[in-house]
Every structure is written in structure tokens, then in C-alpha cells.
């Protein structure tokens, strides 16, 4: 038979956005190594519900590592200790019997806690709304093969576009900077020929919104890249800095938008 484990969980509980939070300690038993972290949380929730207590609220949806909805800081690391893994894809075989696990929400000022482990990440949406798009109304596209895009460029754009918008980069950063998230989107769109027309406008608008939302600046620590479940590279931040600087210079001489 497969081995199971008993664990002690220290979980952040907070009834609502304005309430004061605290850690509660729970025990879960007979957890299979093949269970995902969220399945372990389900077990805890069922246990609490059966005892008439409110379950731990946490965000989750696809449970296959792509929707970006799950969050949680596990033992101090957003999405937990495994590299390039979302919480929903983190399996319990990476923990051991008797271990104590601390579970907190993603902590960052622009991501206020809604309840327990759930946070509000709508600031990311607002960054995209300000410029993270290519203006091309439905029906206005030219034939898809009309503009050849070198494989290298397409691959780079894809590397950048792999971001799932989970916010781990912000939660990992001591400055709560959203440079990796914003850099990924800017790099994705600015590197493609279709995205060039709005390149400067995009960089300026997105950075302005990012700053306005209260995200901190980047001081080249690199925690974001380490925590990113999709291994988005720090190069994206370099490209954002480049594009933003160029845009500012251009904007100085002639407004770009």
C-alpha cells in the first residue's frame, strides 16, 4: 500500500477584508502522496464542515495549472516549494509525515485579502485594460500567413505569453512589484509585428496603471522569477524597462498617444 501522512497545518483565517486575521492550527490525517495540495485542503474543509465550522476559503478553479486562480503562500513561498508549479499542481508527495505546513494568502498591498486565503487581484485586470491588448476589431484581421513571423520571435512571444496572471511574482517580491507580470505582457505584444503600432503607448499606459495601483518598483531581487509557476524570465523586465525608456524619450518629443 502507498504511504500516507499526517500533517499539522497553520492556516491564515480572516473573516472579511476589514477583519483582523490570525493563524489557526489544524490536523489532517491519512493524506495520500498522490493528492494535490488543494485536495488536501478539500479534506480539511470537509473535516471543518462536518464539525459545523466554516471551511477555509481559497481560490481555485481549473486545478491543472493553467487558469491562474489558485494562490496561497506555502511555507513562505507563493505556490509552495516546488519549482515552476502552481498550488493546484503541487502534490503531497513533496511533503513528509509529521510536517507542519504554514499556509497564508498572497501578501501584497495591491492584493487585499477578501477572506482567509482569497485575495483580490483585479489590479492585474486594470493593468491589462490600460494597454495589454492589440487593437484589432473582430473581422479586421488580414490573412494569418500574410505577415511571416520568424520562429524565434514567435517562440519568444509565446514564452512571455505563458504568464497565467496568478500574482505569485507580486507576492514573492519584497516590494510587491508587478514588473514581471507587466513585463511579460509588454514583451509578448511588443515583440510581435502586429503589436508594434501600439508599442510605446502600451508600455507607458501599463506602467502608469501599475504604479497607480500601488505596486512597488523593481530592485532586481529576482524572487519573482523563482516563484513564477510558468518560469517567466527576468528578461521580460529588461524588455519592459527598455520599451518604457524609449517610449518616455519619444513621448518627450512627441506624445505617443
Amino acid at each position, binding site marked *: 500500500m502507498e504511504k500516507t501522512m499526517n500533517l499539522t497545518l497553520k492556516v491564515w483565517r480572516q473573516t472579511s477584508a476589514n477583519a483582523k486575521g490570525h493563524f489557526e492550527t489544524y490536523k489532517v490525517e491519512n493524506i495520500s502522496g498522490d493528492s494535490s495540495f488543494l485536495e488536501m485542503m478539500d479534506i480539511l474543509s470537509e473535516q471543518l464542515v462536518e464539525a459545523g465550522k*466554516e471551511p477555509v476559503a481559497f481560490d481555485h478553479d481549473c*486545478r491543472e495549472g493553467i487558469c491562474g486562480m489558485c494562490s496561497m503562500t506555502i511555507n513562505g513561498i507563493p505556490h509552495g516549494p516546488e519549482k515552476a508549479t502552481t498550488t493546484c499542481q503541487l502534490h503531497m508527495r513533496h511533503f513528509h509525515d509529521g510536517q507542519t505546513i504554514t499556509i497564508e494568502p498572497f501578501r501584497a498591498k495591491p492584493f487585499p485579502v*477578501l477572506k482567509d486565503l482569497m485575495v483580490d487581484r483585479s489590479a492585474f485586470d486594470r493593468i491589462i485594460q490600460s494597454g495589454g491588448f492589440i487593437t484589432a476589431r473582430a473581422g479586421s*484581421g488580414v490573412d494569418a500567413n500574410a505577415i511571416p513571423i520568424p520562429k524565434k520571435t514567435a517562440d519568444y512571444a509565446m514564452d512571455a505569453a*505563458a504568464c497565467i496572471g496568478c500574482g505569485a511574482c507580486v507576492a514573492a517580491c519584497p516590494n510587491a512589484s508587478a514588473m514581471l507580470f507587466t513585463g511579460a505582457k509588454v514583451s509578448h505584444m511588443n515583440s510581435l509585428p502586429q*503589436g508594434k503600432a501600439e508599442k510605446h503607448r502600451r508600455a507607458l499606459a501599463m506602467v502608469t496603471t501599475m504604479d497607480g495601483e500601488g505596486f512597488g518598483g523593481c530592485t532586481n531581487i529576482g524572487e519573482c522569477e523563482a516563484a513564477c509557476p510558468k518560469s517567466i524570465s527576468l528578461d521580460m523586465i529588461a524588455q519592459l524597462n527598455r520599451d518604457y525608456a524609449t517610449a518616455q524619450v519619444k513621448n518627450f518629443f512627441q506624445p505617443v498617444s
Partner: protein
Amino acid sequence: MNLDSKIPEGPLAEKWSSHKFNMKLVNPANRRKYHVIVVGSGLAGGAAAASLAEQGYKVSCFCYQDSPRRAHSIAAQGGINAAKNYQNDGDSVQRLFYDTVKGGDYRSREANVYRLAEVSADIIDQCVANGVPFAREYGGLLANRSFGGAQVSRTFYARGQTGQQLLLGAYAALSRQIGLGNVKMHNRHELLDVVKVEGHAKGIIVRNMVSGEVSRHAGDCVVLATGGYGNVFFLSTNAQGCNVTAAYRAHKRGAGFANPCYTQIHPTCIPVHGDKQSKLTLMSESLRNDGRVWTPMDAETAKQIREGRLDPNQLPEADRDYFLERKYPSFGNLAPRDISSRAAKEACDEGRGVAATGLGVFLDFRDAIKRDGQKAIEERYGNLFEMYRCITGDNPYETPMMIFPAVHYTMGGLWVDYNLESTIPGMFVGGEANFSDHGANRLGASALMQGLADGYFVLPYTVGNYLGEQGVAAAGKVTTDHPAFAEVEADVKARINKLLSINGTETPRSFHKRLGQIIWNQCGMARSKEGLEGAIRDLQELRKEFWSNLKVVGGADGINPELERAGRVADFIEFGELMCRDALMREESCGGHFRVEHQTEEGEALRDDENYAFVGVWEYLGDDVEPNLHKEPLIYENVKLATRSYK
């Protein structure tokens, strides 16, 4: 129930263009006077909301996730079909149309499918314009791969995350419209009912999943793009939040539900590991381009493998049964999903299954790695292999993957006419939530195509036509002050209070699991009269128990995941009964619907075109009243009905 499909006159290839010409237009200056409600922000909903707003309509869009970018379209891996014929291998609109009708086992509507194939090429153009980073060749042109049920390479892809990239394209377009103030986005809101005024859909009642507040929203029409109902099985590849509530509530308000028994069991999922599991994970069908599906020839060898006494890599060629290649030599490992799933089930039923539970077959890349090198395989499927390793702890480069069928997609849905309008006037349904294009089985890489076709290129026209017909004088006339809103809102609140006040002992999740078990056993890959009749009785019993012994902790205010699940499970239980009734009614086997009484000597599905070439549409008559069946005959003028063969 009026089932006029409104298929335009004229030759198949001209129907859509002539219909577009005949539809009413709304003057650009008048469009802003209309308010369109879109529920769902996936490929169909997100693209429709963005496109309608681009045209100038005022749009409100609702989703239950914390951001429209997270809709479950995001999880599609493999690709999107389009009749571009970039590979010069004989593809055409006609062929994509034909493949889709045949793939659907001749249970879909010709005119809708033709339109889907026709607009498929525009979708790729639009996505590229929006910045979707599709895979490309060194020359800079788009790459393609093949998918199940087709003999041409027409699938466009973005690594193993095509759904995510397409959704991010639609999300970007939607975000632009939100930023411009043309779309009001309501995240973390769940639809709980639909409001009709004088027979037309004019609004919705939603619950704010953060504050718990129940609110009314009025519009000139409503678009539902709320996805499929695969979670009725409890375990499926759907996201945790996917539910049937929006579609089922609309059904209870008068929308006919079509073919609910048509569900797709996808052959390549990671096998179940235990009873605490919350979801099943799909491995893209594209893996079958290079992976070979097999089990040991005999049950004894399979047992040794299951018990870890034999390494499958050591098994000589002669002892392996590559059953898809054996049974379907011309399509081989790329046989369509329904057929591949049944073949896997058959092998496991014979005791030849692998995985600890005996419910698994191998998907082996040994030969492909030998032929093309590990690097090439990594390039094609790297992230899928990584995902597999992460979930199972096994390295698929070294030991063959194990897969088993799992519920993945639902072809049934709300009945819609050619305009994607349901039997409730003014209520449009797009994407997986409608029934229209896939018949009894969906081919791989066609869901993304349909979602975006509906959202970018069909609904923006047909919704405009409806609004034009209503006339500009009617725009914005219905407000939330109308008594119909108060009435439905009161129903919604009463239901929430009822769920909270039962004070029983069993949790929503526990009921959900029990429901899933009944449906999987009796309305899954093999269905029988006896089993379905038993399931209907069991579900009625389960429903009674649910409403007398449910336990929901927490209250109506604020975030309450238990309450959310309870409401969804309540609808799933009722819906499950409808599914079983539909499966019981359909005395034939077609596509994903396999009735054990109706099979050929070789165990293949046996259709009955004489008696069952129709869409089964159910009309709701009351909670304890049997629903009424209506039939829309399927008339094939362009495709000759034939026994589907992939041999």
C-alpha cells in the same frame, strides 16, 4: 415549444452569406441605446462581449471567476481547427464540414456545421491579429498538426496551451472594451436566474460571490455562454466551478434542453488515483500523433504490470496489443474520441488494464523517441510531459504514460436555432452551452473553433438582428423596476434561504460525489435501459435526501463556497435525471451515447437513422412532472448518412 430552426433558404454554401445580407442592421448611432447582457467570459462569451462592444452596443459581462481571463476555455491544450489548407493536403471548408458532421455521428445540423467550417479561417486571422502566438515554422508561417478524426493537418496550436492563448486574445479584446467603458465587467458574480418580460429574456438575477448581495440586471437581450455540464459526473476534466446552473435555470424558465445525454468521454486522461480526488486531468489528444496506445495481450501479464512485478518496457513487441492500430488501421491512434475511449474501456473490461486500479492503458512514446529523438518530442509536448510527471511522479520519457477515459465535454446543451437563439426569444446561447455543432461526438480541436466562431462571427450578427427587429423604440425600455424582476429575485432569495435552513448532516460535496457515481455508472461510457431506469429512481431519491438532509455551514452574506456548491449540486441532481431520461429515450447508439442494446457484432455503435435522426429537445413542466419531449428532425441534404468507419 416552437422548434423552428430558421435555416436560411438556398444552397448550403450560400446560406450564411445570404442570411447576413437579410438580417436587420442597427444604425451605429443607435447601438449605444441597447444593452446586451453576456454571461460567461470564455471564448464564446468573452469574444461576443468584446465584439458587440466594438460594434457600439453597451455590454455587461458576468463571470464567476475573479477575472474573465480564467474561464475554463483556458484549459484547452491541443489546438483549434481551421480550413486554411496551409498544408496543401486537400483541406477545404467542405471537408472540415464533412469531417465534423461525420465525427458527430450524423446528429448535428448541417447548416450550422457548414457555417462553422466557413468562418473557421476568419478565426485564425482574427487571433493572429490579436497577437495569439501560434506555433510557426522557420519560414515564419504558421505550423499545423493533425488531430483525431481527420486525415489532413488543419490544427493550429500554441504549444500545449492553445486554449489559454486564444482566451488571452479574447480577454485582451474584452479588456480593451472594459477600459474604454463599453463593457461593464462583473467578476465573481454567479447567475442564479433569468428574468422574462412578455415572453422575452430581459434580464438576470445574480449573486455577488464576495458580498453575497443578490442583484437584478436588465438588458435588451441575454447571451448565455456558460459552458458545459461535465461536472454532473463529479469527476471530470472541467474546472471546479463549471456548472449547469445558468443553463438549467434558463431551461426551467422555458428554454428547451437539447440532447443532454450526448457527453464526451475523452480517451487520454490521467487515471484516477483515489477517492479523495477532486478532478481528472486531460492529456492533449495531440499526444496521439506520436504516442502509441496499447495494453498487454493477456490479462495475466497486465496483472504483473499492475503489481509492479514487470516493467512494461521489457515486454516484447509480440505481447503488446496496439488495439487502436489493430482495430482501426487507417486512423490508428488518431481514431475519434468516442471510439478510442470505448476501445480502452473494452481492453480494461477484459482485465488487460494497467495502472494500480486496472483502469488504464499505455500511451507509449518509445518508438517516436527512437525515430525523432527526445529533443523533437520535448519540443512538441514538453509541457504536457512535465504536467504528467508532476501529477503522477513518473517520467514519461522513460516509462510509458498511462491514460484512461474521463468526462471532458458535453455536446448537449440549450437548443438554439440557426441564429443561436434559444426557445426563449431574446436569449442567445453560445459555445459549449448550446447544442448546435457537434452532434453526438465532438472532434478534437473543434471546441475552441466553435466558441470563437459563435463569439466573434455569429452572435455579433444575430444579436444585432434581434435588436433591430425589436426596434429602437424598445431599447432600454425594460428596467429592473418591472415586477417580473422582483418576483424572480424573491424566488432566488427563497431558494438560498431554503438551502441554508435544512440543517441536515450531509455536505454538498458528499451529495455531489454520490450523484457523480450514479451518472458515471449508468450514464457514462455504456448505458442500458435497466441501468438508466434505476438511475432515474436513485436520482429522485437523492434529490429528496438532498432537500431534507443537506448541511450548509455559513450564511447568505459574504463568501460562502459551501452555499455556492450546494446551489450547483441541487441543479446538477435535477439535470442528471434529465440526462438519464434522454439516454433512455434514445434507443440507438451514436457517438458518445452508447446503448449496450444497440451495437454491431464487432461492438461498434449502431445508429438508427430511420427513427432517431432528430434532436431530442426537452421542455420543463414542473419539478415532479415528467418533461415533455419535442423533436427537431435532422435533414441531410448534402451529406449522405453512412455508417461511420475509421477502419
